[in-house]
């Protein structure tokens, strides 16, 4: 298949993967596999920054690629790290002639690679990782290949950032529901105590809060006990005066 139709097909595939509960690793594995099919490269790999700030190998098109990438992380040098740190592409580095990576180069040569390239995964200010493209031949990457690879990396970047935002939204929504549920329990307990002890809501709440403070307990736990009937109105009353 010619390159243009393959690129289009890949973009459609990537978009298809962006369904509600898509798997990031699955998407990125698809991306690196398609890079090898579409571009004039022998292997592709992808590193992403983890929440702690360290890069991790997330997807590799071959085992040889994965081993070299892991070594890159271990030795803390190589095209992917340079690209991630600078946010700029690292292109056309022939391993026979470059001397910028004294540890990485022999290992990459040993694995059969002759030239290496890396493109940043960035969106506005954020750099979230880099795409590694390795070749078993020397020589520069075709300019159109560089453009196509950067476009693929950009699509993956947008997908990952959206996914992260969705996860954050989910956590906050759970906190919101939890806060509402806790509050409902406290309001119910106020009602139970108000009825049992003949109080208004304000005084019922003050008594619940004093009891919780005096007994070093969470208000919501005390509320639950009052609703369940395991804490009587009398126990709340006697436990809410002074310090226990």
């Amino acid at each position, binding site marked *: 298949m010619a390159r243009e139709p393959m690129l289009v097909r890949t973009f459609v595939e990537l978009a298809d993967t962006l369904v509600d509960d898509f798997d990031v690793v699955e998407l990125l594995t698809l991306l690196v596999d398609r890079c090898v099919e579409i571009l004039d490269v022998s292997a592709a790999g992808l590193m992403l920054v983890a929440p702690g700030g360290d890069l991790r190998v997330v997807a590799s098109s071959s085992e040889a690629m994965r081993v070299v990438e892991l070594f890159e992380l271990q030795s803390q040098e190589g095209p992917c790290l340079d690209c991630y740190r600078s946010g700029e592409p690292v292109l056309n580095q022939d391993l026979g002639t470059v001397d910028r990576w004294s540890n990485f180069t022999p290992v990459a040569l040993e694995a059969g690679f002759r030239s290496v390239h890396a493109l940043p995964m960035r969106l506005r200010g954020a750099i979230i990782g880099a795409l590694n493209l390795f070749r078993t031949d020397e020589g520069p990457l075709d300019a159109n290949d560089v453009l196509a690879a950067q476009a693929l990396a950009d699509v993956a970047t947008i997908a990952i950032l959206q996914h992260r935002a969705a996860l954050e939204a989910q956590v906050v929504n759970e906190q919101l529901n939890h*806060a509402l549920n806790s509050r409902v329990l406290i309001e119910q307990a106020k009602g*139970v105590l*108000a009825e049992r002890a003949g109080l208004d809501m304000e005084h019922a709440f003050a008594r619940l809060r004093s009891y919780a403070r005096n007994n070093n307990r969470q208000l919501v736990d005390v509320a639950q006990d009052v609703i369940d009937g395991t804490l009587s109105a009398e126990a709340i009353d006697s436990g809410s005066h002074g310090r226990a």
Partner: protein
Amino acid sequence: MAGNRLLRILAELTARGGTGSSARLCEVSVDVLAMTGAGIMLMSEDTPRGSVCSSNDVSARIEELQYTFGEGPCVDAYRQDRPVLEPDLAKPATARWPAFTPPAVAAGAEAVFGFPVRVGTIRLGALNLYRDQPGVLSDDQHADALVMADVAARAVLAAQAKAPPDELAAELETGGDFRFVVHQASGMVAAQLGIGVGEALVRLRAYAFANDRMLSDVAEDVVARRLRLE
């Protein structure tokens, strides 16, 4: 186009002092969408939990009716996860919401629209729009409502993200109405009748329905000890 809509809505919010108060979300919804009133309802586990804001008494009433009866455009929009449009509530093409519709029309809602308030797959509730004249939404209004609902979802989450753990964000609580009196009344009825709080809420709801009253009003009477369920 979507970007322009978003910019216009954000500009309106900023002109009123930003998303800091949840009440502004409803005011901007009314102005941008040319509605008579708007409200934003939070839901979870298929049940209305309360209002983030409502722009006028009729909107508040529309939310209260859905809270009381558990049916209506917002409840459907949330459950079905899509916009629910009723351009002629008094003479609907398909009759739905038998408990909600007559009092909503009596309150002055001739057209009602519910839009899901969500971020991705995370569903928070629904944007509730009404007009005092029947009529469909224009394509522009529909598109604006989708963007407005999106802005509302992000504003609610942004507010809650700043709150201490286990606490409802202050700006949601002060601008909204979470009907805490209903839960206080449930506690009282549970203690009076020796039943669980869940069953007590069902009894309160049944009483409100049977007596053609709003759940919050019945709850107010119970808490003020003007009403005792038998």
